Protein backbone atom coordinates (compact mmCIF):
# COMPACT_ATOMS: atom_id res chain seq x y z
CA UNK A 1 0.00 0.00 0.00
CA UNK A 2 1.44 3.39 -0.97
CA UNK A 3 0.23 6.79 0.20
CA UNK A 4 -0.25 9.45 -2.47
CA UNK A 5 2.14 12.30 -1.74
CA UNK A 6 0.50 15.41 -0.30
CA UNK A 7 -2.71 13.70 0.80
CA UNK A 8 -1.73 12.16 4.15
CA UNK A 9 -2.95 15.08 6.23
CA UNK A 10 -6.19 15.17 4.23
CA UNK A 11 -6.72 11.45 4.87
CA UNK A 12 -6.18 11.83 8.63
CA UNK A 13 -8.42 14.90 8.76
CA UNK A 14 -11.15 13.12 6.74
CA UNK A 15 -11.00 10.15 9.11
CA UNK A 16 -11.24 12.44 12.16
CA UNK A 17 -14.14 14.36 10.56
CA UNK A 18 -15.97 11.14 9.72
CA UNK A 19 -15.38 9.75 13.22
CA UNK A 20 -16.75 12.90 14.90
CA UNK A 21 -19.89 12.95 12.75
CA UNK A 22 -20.41 9.22 13.39
CA UNK A 23 -19.83 9.76 17.14
CA UNK A 24 -22.47 12.50 17.34
CA UNK A 25 -24.96 10.40 15.35
CA UNK A 26 -24.36 7.47 17.73
CA UNK A 27 -24.85 9.79 20.72
CA UNK A 28 -28.28 10.72 19.35
CA UNK A 29 -29.14 7.08 18.54
CA UNK A 30 -28.37 5.96 22.10
CA UNK A 31 -30.30 8.90 23.56
CA UNK A 32 -27.24 10.53 25.17
CA UNK A 33 -27.73 13.73 23.23
CA UNK A 34 -30.79 15.51 21.85
CA UNK A 35 -29.63 18.19 19.42
CA UNK A 36 -31.74 21.12 18.33
CA UNK A 37 -31.52 22.77 14.94
CA UNK A 38 -32.29 26.46 14.48
CA UNK A 39 -35.01 27.68 12.14
CA UNK A 40 -33.94 28.03 8.52
CA UNK A 41 -36.28 30.62 7.00
CA UNK A 42 -35.50 29.59 3.42
CA UNK A 43 -36.67 26.04 4.02
CA UNK A 44 -39.74 27.13 5.98
CA UNK A 45 -40.63 29.40 3.05
CA UNK A 46 -41.02 26.49 0.62
CA UNK A 47 -44.47 25.69 2.04
CA UNK A 48 -45.46 29.36 1.82
CA UNK A 49 -44.32 29.43 -1.83
CA UNK A 50 -46.28 26.28 -2.73
CA UNK A 51 -49.35 27.55 -0.85
CA UNK A 52 -49.19 30.75 -2.90
CA UNK A 53 -48.87 28.76 -6.14
CA UNK A 54 -51.97 26.76 -5.15
CA UNK A 55 -53.98 29.91 -4.45
CA UNK A 56 -52.96 31.41 -7.80
CA UNK A 57 -53.47 28.13 -9.72
CA UNK A 58 -50.04 28.40 -11.30
CA UNK A 59 -47.18 25.90 -11.39
CA UNK A 60 -44.07 25.56 -9.24
CA UNK A 61 -40.69 25.27 -10.98
CA UNK A 62 -37.93 23.36 -9.19
CA UNK A 63 -34.37 23.59 -10.54
CA UNK A 64 -31.81 21.24 -8.94
CA UNK A 65 -28.83 23.16 -10.32
CA UNK A 66 -26.66 22.34 -13.28
CA UNK A 67 -24.17 19.97 -11.67
CA UNK A 68 -24.23 16.22 -12.13
CA UNK A 69 -24.17 13.39 -9.62
CA UNK A 70 -20.55 12.34 -10.17
CA UNK A 71 -18.55 15.58 -10.01
CA UNK A 72 -17.30 17.50 -6.99
CA UNK A 73 -20.54 19.49 -6.77
CA UNK A 74 -22.55 16.25 -6.48
CA UNK A 75 -23.27 16.73 -2.72
CA UNK A 76 -25.15 19.92 -3.63
CA UNK A 77 -27.21 18.03 -6.21
CA UNK A 78 -27.93 15.27 -3.68
CA UNK A 79 -28.95 17.87 -1.08
CA UNK A 80 -31.26 19.34 -3.74
CA UNK A 81 -32.85 15.90 -4.20
CA UNK A 82 -33.68 15.82 -0.47
CA UNK A 83 -35.41 19.18 -0.81
CA UNK A 84 -37.14 18.03 -4.02
CA UNK A 85 -38.61 15.08 -2.08
CA UNK A 86 -40.03 17.43 0.55
CA UNK A 87 -41.31 19.82 -2.14
CA UNK A 88 -43.06 16.93 -3.92
CA UNK A 89 -44.83 15.94 -0.69
CA UNK A 90 -46.10 19.50 -0.29
CA UNK A 91 -47.16 19.60 -3.94
CA UNK A 92 -49.16 16.40 -3.35
CA UNK A 93 -50.68 17.86 -0.17
CA UNK A 94 -51.80 21.06 -1.92
CA UNK A 95 -52.61 19.36 -5.27
CA UNK A 96 -50.76 21.88 -7.36
CA UNK A 97 -48.52 21.47 -10.41
CA UNK A 98 -44.78 20.79 -10.20
CA UNK A 99 -42.22 20.93 -12.99
CA UNK A 100 -38.63 19.87 -12.32
CA UNK A 101 -36.17 21.20 -14.87
CA UNK A 102 -33.12 19.05 -15.55
CA UNK A 103 -29.80 19.92 -17.14
CA UNK A 104 -27.62 16.86 -16.55
CA UNK A 105 -29.04 13.69 -18.13
CA UNK A 106 -27.74 11.42 -15.32
CA UNK A 107 -29.86 13.35 -12.82
CA UNK A 108 -33.00 12.86 -14.91
CA UNK A 109 -33.90 9.28 -13.79
CA UNK A 110 -33.03 10.14 -10.16
CA UNK A 111 -35.35 13.17 -10.15
CA UNK A 112 -38.07 11.07 -11.78
CA UNK A 113 -37.71 8.38 -9.10
CA UNK A 114 -37.74 10.92 -6.26
CA UNK A 115 -40.93 12.63 -7.45
CA UNK A 116 -42.69 9.40 -8.47
CA UNK A 117 -41.99 7.73 -5.11
CA UNK A 118 -43.00 10.78 -3.08
CA UNK A 119 -46.28 11.17 -4.97
CA UNK A 120 -46.89 7.46 -4.39
CA UNK A 121 -46.07 7.74 -0.67
CA UNK A 122 -48.41 10.74 -0.42
CA UNK A 123 -51.25 8.64 -1.88
CA UNK A 124 -51.43 10.61 -5.14
CA UNK A 125 -49.51 8.57 -7.75
CA UNK A 126 -51.68 10.08 -10.53
CA UNK A 127 -50.03 13.45 -9.92
CA UNK A 128 -46.79 12.16 -11.42
CA UNK A 129 -46.90 12.93 -15.12
CA UNK A 130 -44.49 12.74 -18.01
CA UNK A 131 -44.15 16.52 -17.80
CA UNK A 132 -43.33 16.57 -14.08
CA UNK A 133 -39.61 16.04 -14.68
CA UNK A 134 -38.42 17.62 -17.91
CA UNK A 135 -35.00 17.47 -19.50
CA UNK A 136 -34.45 20.97 -20.90
CA UNK A 137 -30.90 20.90 -22.31
CA UNK A 138 -27.41 19.82 -21.33
CA UNK A 139 -26.00 23.16 -22.51
CA UNK A 140 -25.70 25.65 -19.64
CA UNK A 141 -27.22 28.69 -21.33
CA UNK A 142 -29.74 26.73 -23.36
CA UNK A 143 -30.94 25.29 -20.04
CA UNK A 144 -31.11 28.78 -18.53
CA UNK A 145 -33.02 30.06 -21.58
CA UNK A 146 -35.47 27.14 -21.34
CA UNK A 147 -36.09 27.84 -17.63
CA UNK A 148 -36.52 31.56 -18.30
CA UNK A 149 -38.92 30.86 -21.15
CA UNK A 150 -40.91 28.42 -19.01
CA UNK A 151 -41.21 30.94 -16.16
CA UNK A 152 -42.38 33.65 -18.55
CA UNK A 153 -44.86 31.49 -20.52
CA UNK A 154 -46.36 29.63 -17.58
CA UNK A 155 -46.13 32.60 -15.18
CA UNK A 156 -44.87 30.31 -12.42
CA UNK A 157 -45.97 31.35 -8.94
CA UNK A 158 -42.98 29.78 -7.17
CA UNK A 159 -39.44 29.22 -8.35
CA UNK A 160 -37.29 26.97 -6.18
CA UNK A 161 -33.59 26.76 -7.12
CA UNK A 162 -31.49 24.41 -5.02
CA UNK A 163 -28.07 23.01 -5.90
CA UNK A 164 -24.96 24.07 -7.75
CA UNK A 165 -25.40 27.10 -10.01
CA UNK A 166 -22.93 29.13 -12.00
CA UNK A 167 -23.40 32.06 -14.42
CA UNK A 168 -27.04 31.17 -15.10
CA UNK A 169 -28.08 31.84 -11.47
CA UNK A 170 -28.86 35.54 -11.96
CA UNK A 171 -30.52 34.96 -15.34
CA UNK A 172 -32.92 32.45 -13.81
CA UNK A 173 -33.52 34.41 -10.60
CA UNK A 174 -34.25 37.61 -12.49
CA UNK A 175 -36.62 35.83 -14.89
CA UNK A 176 -38.45 34.46 -11.83
CA UNK A 177 -38.64 37.90 -10.24
CA UNK A 178 -40.00 39.39 -13.46
CA UNK A 179 -42.64 36.65 -13.62
CA UNK A 180 -43.70 37.66 -10.10
CA UNK A 181 -42.76 34.33 -8.57
CA UNK A 182 -41.88 33.86 -4.93
CA UNK A 183 -38.30 32.62 -5.08
CA UNK A 184 -36.37 30.35 -2.73
CA UNK A 185 -32.79 29.59 -3.70
CA UNK A 186 -29.85 27.79 -2.14
CA UNK A 187 -26.32 27.09 -3.25
CA UNK A 188 -22.87 26.45 -1.86
CA UNK A 189 -21.20 28.09 -4.88
CA UNK A 190 -19.73 31.16 -3.23
CA UNK A 191 -19.79 33.50 -6.22
CA UNK A 192 -23.48 32.92 -6.94
CA UNK A 193 -24.74 33.57 -3.40
CA UNK A 194 -24.78 37.41 -3.81
CA UNK A 195 -26.90 37.07 -6.96
CA UNK A 196 -29.44 34.91 -5.16
CA UNK A 197 -29.46 37.25 -2.15
CA UNK A 198 -30.13 40.20 -4.47
CA UNK A 199 -32.78 38.58 -6.65
CA UNK A 200 -34.60 36.01 -4.47
CA UNK A 201 -36.97 36.27 -1.53
CA UNK A 202 -35.16 33.63 0.53
CA UNK A 203 -31.63 32.26 0.15
CA UNK A 204 -29.97 29.25 1.73
CA UNK A 205 -26.30 30.06 2.18
CA UNK A 206 -23.66 27.34 1.92
CA UNK A 207 -24.12 24.69 4.59
CA UNK A 208 -27.84 25.52 5.04
CA UNK A 209 -28.42 23.73 1.73
CA UNK A 210 -26.72 20.59 3.06
CA UNK A 211 -28.71 20.77 6.31
CA UNK A 212 -31.95 20.70 4.29
CA UNK A 213 -32.43 16.93 4.46
CA UNK A 214 -31.97 16.85 8.23
CA UNK A 215 -34.03 19.97 8.87
CA UNK A 216 -37.01 18.99 6.74
CA UNK A 217 -37.20 15.38 7.95
CA UNK A 218 -36.45 16.38 11.59
CA UNK A 219 -34.69 13.01 11.79
CA UNK A 220 -32.73 13.09 15.06
CA UNK A 221 -29.80 11.02 13.71
CA UNK A 222 -29.40 13.35 10.72
CA UNK A 223 -29.57 16.36 13.04
CA UNK A 224 -26.89 14.63 15.13
CA UNK A 225 -24.59 14.75 12.13
CA UNK A 226 -25.21 18.52 11.87
CA UNK A 227 -24.15 18.76 15.54
CA UNK A 228 -20.99 16.85 14.56
CA UNK A 229 -20.32 19.51 11.91
CA UNK A 230 -20.23 22.15 14.68
CA UNK A 231 -17.48 20.18 16.45
CA UNK A 232 -15.45 20.08 13.24
CA UNK A 233 -15.86 23.83 12.84
CA UNK A 234 -14.28 24.25 16.29
CA UNK A 235 -11.33 22.10 15.14
CA UNK A 236 -11.05 24.20 11.93
CA UNK A 237 -11.03 27.38 14.02
CA UNK A 238 -8.25 25.95 16.21
CA UNK A 239 -6.29 25.04 13.06
CA UNK A 240 -6.74 28.57 11.69
CA UNK A 241 -5.47 29.97 15.00
CA UNK A 242 -2.42 27.69 14.99
CA UNK A 243 -1.75 28.59 11.35
CA UNK A 244 -1.98 32.32 12.10
CA UNK A 245 0.34 32.02 15.10
CA UNK A 246 2.97 29.93 13.29
CA UNK A 247 2.88 32.31 10.30
CA UNK A 248 3.25 35.28 12.67
CA UNK A 249 6.40 33.70 14.15
CA UNK A 250 7.78 32.84 10.69
CA UNK A 251 7.44 29.09 11.19
CA UNK A 252 6.51 26.90 8.24
CA UNK A 253 5.86 23.85 10.45
CA UNK A 254 2.06 24.03 10.03
CA UNK A 255 2.25 24.62 6.29
CA UNK A 256 4.50 21.55 5.93
CA UNK A 257 2.13 19.45 8.03
CA UNK A 258 -0.91 20.39 5.91
CA UNK A 259 0.84 19.46 2.66
CA UNK A 260 2.25 16.14 3.89
Amino acid at each position, binding site marked *: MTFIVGTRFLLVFSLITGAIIFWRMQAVRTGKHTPQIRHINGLDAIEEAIGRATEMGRPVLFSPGIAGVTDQSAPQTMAAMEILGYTTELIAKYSTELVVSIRTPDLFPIAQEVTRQRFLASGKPEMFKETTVQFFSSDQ*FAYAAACMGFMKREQVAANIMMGAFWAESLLMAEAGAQAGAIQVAGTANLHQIPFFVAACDYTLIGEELFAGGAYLSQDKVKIGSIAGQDWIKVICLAMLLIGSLTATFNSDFWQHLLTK
Partner: protein
Amino acid sequence: MRREIPIAITLIVGLTMLLSNFVDVPLGSEYSLKSLASELGGWVIIISAFAVGLASVNLVRIHSNHIRRRSSNWIYSVLLLVFLVGWTVMGILEFHNPESEALRTFSQNMFNSILSSLGAAMFALVALYLASAANRAFRVRNLDAAILLGATLIMMLGRAPVGALIWDKFPVMADWMLSVPNNVGQRAIMIGAAIGAFATSLRILLGIERGHLGSE
Protein backbone atom coordinates in the same frame (compact mmCIF):
# COMPACT_ATOMS: atom_id res chain seq x y z
CA MET B 1 -33.88 -5.31 -0.97
CA ARG B 2 -34.97 -2.50 -3.31
CA ARG B 3 -33.31 -0.05 -0.98
CA GLU B 4 -30.48 -2.16 0.47
CA ILE B 5 -28.80 -3.08 -2.84
CA PRO B 6 -28.43 0.54 -4.07
CA ILE B 7 -27.14 1.58 -0.64
CA ALA B 8 -24.57 -1.27 -0.64
CA ILE B 9 -23.42 -0.34 -4.17
CA THR B 10 -23.17 3.33 -3.12
CA LEU B 11 -21.05 2.41 -0.08
CA ILE B 12 -18.65 0.14 -1.99
CA VAL B 13 -18.20 2.43 -5.01
CA GLY B 14 -18.07 5.58 -2.86
CA LEU B 15 -15.40 4.19 -0.54
CA THR B 16 -13.35 2.90 -3.50
CA MET B 17 -13.40 6.31 -5.21
CA LEU B 18 -12.68 8.13 -1.92
CA LEU B 19 -9.76 5.92 -0.86
CA SER B 20 -8.21 5.98 -4.35
CA ASN B 21 -7.51 9.69 -3.79
CA PHE B 22 -5.33 8.90 -0.76
CA VAL B 23 -3.75 5.47 -1.18
CA ASP B 24 -2.94 3.00 -3.92
CA VAL B 25 -3.43 -0.63 -2.94
CA PRO B 26 -2.35 -3.46 -5.29
CA LEU B 27 -5.24 -5.82 -6.09
CA GLY B 28 -3.59 -8.89 -7.61
CA SER B 29 -0.84 -8.67 -10.22
CA GLU B 30 -2.67 -6.53 -12.79
CA TYR B 31 -5.02 -4.27 -10.85
CA SER B 32 -4.72 -1.67 -8.13
CA LEU B 33 -7.21 0.52 -6.24
CA LYS B 34 -6.37 3.41 -8.56
CA SER B 35 -6.97 1.37 -11.73
CA LEU B 36 -10.24 0.08 -10.24
CA ALA B 37 -11.35 3.66 -9.57
CA SER B 38 -10.41 4.58 -13.13
CA GLU B 39 -12.42 1.61 -14.43
CA LEU B 40 -15.43 2.76 -12.38
CA GLY B 41 -15.01 6.21 -13.95
CA GLY B 42 -15.40 4.51 -17.35
CA TRP B 43 -18.63 2.87 -16.16
CA VAL B 44 -19.97 6.30 -15.22
CA ILE B 45 -19.54 7.41 -18.85
CA ILE B 46 -21.46 4.36 -20.11
CA ILE B 47 -24.29 4.88 -17.60
CA SER B 48 -24.40 8.59 -18.50
CA ALA B 49 -24.78 7.64 -22.17
CA PHE B 50 -27.90 5.64 -21.29
CA ALA B 51 -29.17 8.60 -19.24
CA VAL B 52 -28.73 10.85 -22.30
CA GLY B 53 -30.97 8.43 -24.23
CA LEU B 54 -33.64 8.51 -21.51
CA ALA B 55 -33.53 12.30 -21.26
CA SER B 56 -33.72 12.70 -25.07
CA VAL B 57 -36.76 10.42 -25.23
CA ASN B 58 -38.43 12.63 -22.60
CA LEU B 59 -37.62 15.75 -24.62
CA VAL B 60 -38.93 14.26 -27.88
CA ARG B 61 -42.15 12.92 -26.30
CA ILE B 62 -43.01 16.19 -24.54
CA HIS B 63 -42.42 18.30 -27.64
CA SER B 64 -44.16 15.81 -29.96
CA ASN B 65 -47.22 16.09 -27.69
CA HIS B 66 -47.03 19.90 -27.91
CA ILE B 67 -47.07 19.68 -31.70
CA ARG B 68 -49.85 17.07 -31.81
CA ARG B 69 -52.10 19.08 -29.46
CA ARG B 70 -51.17 22.38 -31.15
CA SER B 71 -50.40 23.85 -27.71
CA SER B 72 -49.47 27.52 -27.55
CA ASN B 73 -46.02 28.18 -29.08
CA TRP B 74 -46.01 24.69 -30.67
CA ILE B 75 -43.92 26.06 -33.53
CA TYR B 76 -40.93 26.29 -31.13
CA SER B 77 -41.29 22.58 -30.43
CA VAL B 78 -41.06 21.95 -34.20
CA LEU B 79 -37.86 24.02 -34.34
CA LEU B 80 -36.41 22.15 -31.37
CA LEU B 81 -37.10 18.74 -32.89
CA VAL B 82 -35.77 19.79 -36.31
CA PHE B 83 -32.50 20.99 -34.78
CA LEU B 84 -32.27 17.96 -32.45
CA VAL B 85 -32.64 15.51 -35.35
CA GLY B 86 -30.57 17.63 -37.75
CA TRP B 87 -27.65 17.98 -35.37
CA THR B 88 -27.73 14.27 -34.55
CA VAL B 89 -27.76 13.29 -38.25
CA MET B 90 -24.92 15.70 -38.96
CA GLY B 91 -22.86 14.24 -36.10
CA ILE B 92 -23.40 10.68 -37.41
CA LEU B 93 -22.50 11.70 -40.97
CA GLU B 94 -19.36 13.47 -39.76
CA PHE B 95 -18.35 10.43 -37.70
CA HIS B 96 -18.67 8.13 -40.72
CA ASN B 97 -16.99 10.57 -43.15
CA PRO B 98 -14.05 11.94 -41.14
CA GLU B 99 -12.22 13.11 -44.28
CA SER B 100 -15.16 15.19 -45.58
CA GLU B 101 -14.05 18.84 -45.43
CA ALA B 102 -17.53 20.12 -46.36
CA LEU B 103 -19.22 18.31 -43.46
CA ARG B 104 -16.59 19.47 -40.98
CA THR B 105 -16.86 23.10 -42.11
CA PHE B 106 -20.66 22.98 -42.00
CA SER B 107 -20.59 21.46 -38.51
CA GLN B 108 -18.10 24.05 -37.24
CA ASN B 109 -20.10 26.89 -38.77
CA MET B 110 -23.29 25.60 -37.13
CA PHE B 111 -21.50 25.49 -33.79
CA ASN B 112 -19.72 28.85 -34.07
CA SER B 113 -22.52 30.79 -35.75
CA ILE B 114 -25.49 29.43 -33.84
CA LEU B 115 -24.68 27.71 -30.55
CA SER B 116 -21.70 29.87 -29.49
CA SER B 117 -23.42 33.10 -30.51
CA LEU B 118 -26.59 32.22 -28.63
CA GLY B 119 -24.55 31.23 -25.56
CA ALA B 120 -22.63 34.51 -25.68
CA ALA B 121 -25.88 36.46 -26.03
CA MET B 122 -27.34 34.71 -22.98
CA PHE B 123 -24.18 35.39 -20.97
CA ALA B 124 -24.32 39.07 -21.98
CA LEU B 125 -27.79 39.28 -20.43
CA VAL B 126 -26.12 38.86 -17.03
CA ALA B 127 -24.87 42.47 -17.24
CA LEU B 128 -28.40 43.75 -17.85
CA TYR B 129 -29.91 41.62 -15.11
CA LEU B 130 -27.17 42.70 -12.71
CA ALA B 131 -28.50 46.25 -12.96
CA SER B 132 -32.15 45.25 -12.52
CA ALA B 133 -31.32 42.98 -9.54
CA ALA B 134 -29.24 45.75 -7.96
CA ASN B 135 -32.12 48.19 -8.45
CA ARG B 136 -34.36 45.97 -6.31
CA ALA B 137 -31.76 44.87 -3.77
CA PHE B 138 -30.49 48.35 -2.98
CA ARG B 139 -33.81 49.82 -1.95
CA VAL B 140 -33.31 50.93 1.66
CA ARG B 141 -36.11 49.06 3.38
CA ASN B 142 -34.29 48.16 6.59
CA LEU B 143 -30.89 48.41 8.29
CA ASP B 144 -29.44 45.36 6.43
CA ALA B 145 -30.35 46.88 3.05
CA ALA B 146 -28.86 50.22 4.12
CA ILE B 147 -25.56 48.52 5.05
CA LEU B 148 -25.60 46.66 1.71
CA LEU B 149 -26.16 49.90 -0.18
CA GLY B 150 -23.41 51.70 1.77
CA ALA B 151 -20.89 48.91 1.10
CA THR B 152 -21.84 48.88 -2.59
CA LEU B 153 -21.41 52.63 -2.98
CA ILE B 154 -17.95 52.52 -1.38
CA MET B 155 -16.98 49.55 -3.57
CA MET B 156 -18.20 51.22 -6.77
CA LEU B 157 -16.49 54.52 -5.95
CA GLY B 158 -13.33 52.62 -5.01
CA ARG B 159 -13.23 50.75 -8.28
CA ALA B 160 -14.33 53.50 -10.70
CA PRO B 161 -11.66 56.10 -11.60
CA VAL B 162 -14.01 58.92 -10.64
CA GLY B 163 -14.02 57.67 -7.01
CA ALA B 164 -10.33 58.42 -6.54
CA LEU B 165 -10.87 61.92 -7.95
CA ILE B 166 -13.61 62.61 -5.40
CA TRP B 167 -11.62 61.25 -2.43
CA ASP B 168 -8.35 59.35 -2.68
CA LYS B 169 -9.31 57.10 0.25
CA PHE B 170 -12.16 55.39 -1.66
CA PRO B 171 -9.82 52.87 -3.41
CA VAL B 172 -8.10 52.13 -0.07
CA MET B 173 -11.47 51.52 1.63
CA ALA B 174 -12.63 49.32 -1.24
CA ASP B 175 -9.44 47.23 -1.10
CA TRP B 176 -9.81 46.82 2.67
CA MET B 177 -13.46 45.77 2.34
CA LEU B 178 -12.55 43.18 -0.28
CA SER B 179 -9.56 41.73 1.50
CA VAL B 180 -10.81 41.77 5.12
CA PRO B 181 -14.60 41.56 5.79
CA ASN B 182 -15.44 40.06 2.39
CA ASN B 183 -12.63 37.51 2.58
CA VAL B 184 -13.51 36.54 6.14
CA GLY B 185 -17.17 36.02 5.25
CA GLN B 186 -16.35 34.02 2.12
CA ARG B 187 -13.94 31.74 3.98
CA ALA B 188 -16.47 31.14 6.75
CA ILE B 189 -19.11 30.14 4.19
CA MET B 190 -16.58 27.99 2.33
CA ILE B 191 -15.47 26.09 5.46
CA GLY B 192 -19.08 25.55 6.55
CA ALA B 193 -20.11 24.39 3.07
CA ALA B 194 -17.13 22.02 2.76
CA ILE B 195 -17.93 20.40 6.10
CA GLY B 196 -21.61 20.25 5.12
CA ALA B 197 -20.72 18.57 1.82
CA PHE B 198 -18.56 16.03 3.66
CA ALA B 199 -21.31 15.25 6.18
CA THR B 200 -23.92 14.92 3.40
CA SER B 201 -21.63 12.55 1.47
CA LEU B 202 -21.07 10.48 4.61
CA ARG B 203 -24.81 10.26 5.30
CA ILE B 204 -25.39 9.12 1.70
CA LEU B 205 -22.58 6.53 1.87
CA LEU B 206 -23.97 5.13 5.13
CA GLY B 207 -27.51 5.05 3.72
CA ILE B 208 -28.82 7.53 6.31
CA GLU B 209 -29.71 10.13 3.69
CA ARG B 210 -31.91 8.34 1.14
CA GLY B 211 -33.83 11.15 -0.52
CA HIS B 212 -32.21 10.43 -3.89
CA LEU B 213 -33.70 6.91 -3.77
CA GLY B 214 -37.18 8.35 -3.41
CA SER B 215 -37.53 7.65 0.31
CA GLU B 216 -36.85 9.69 3.44
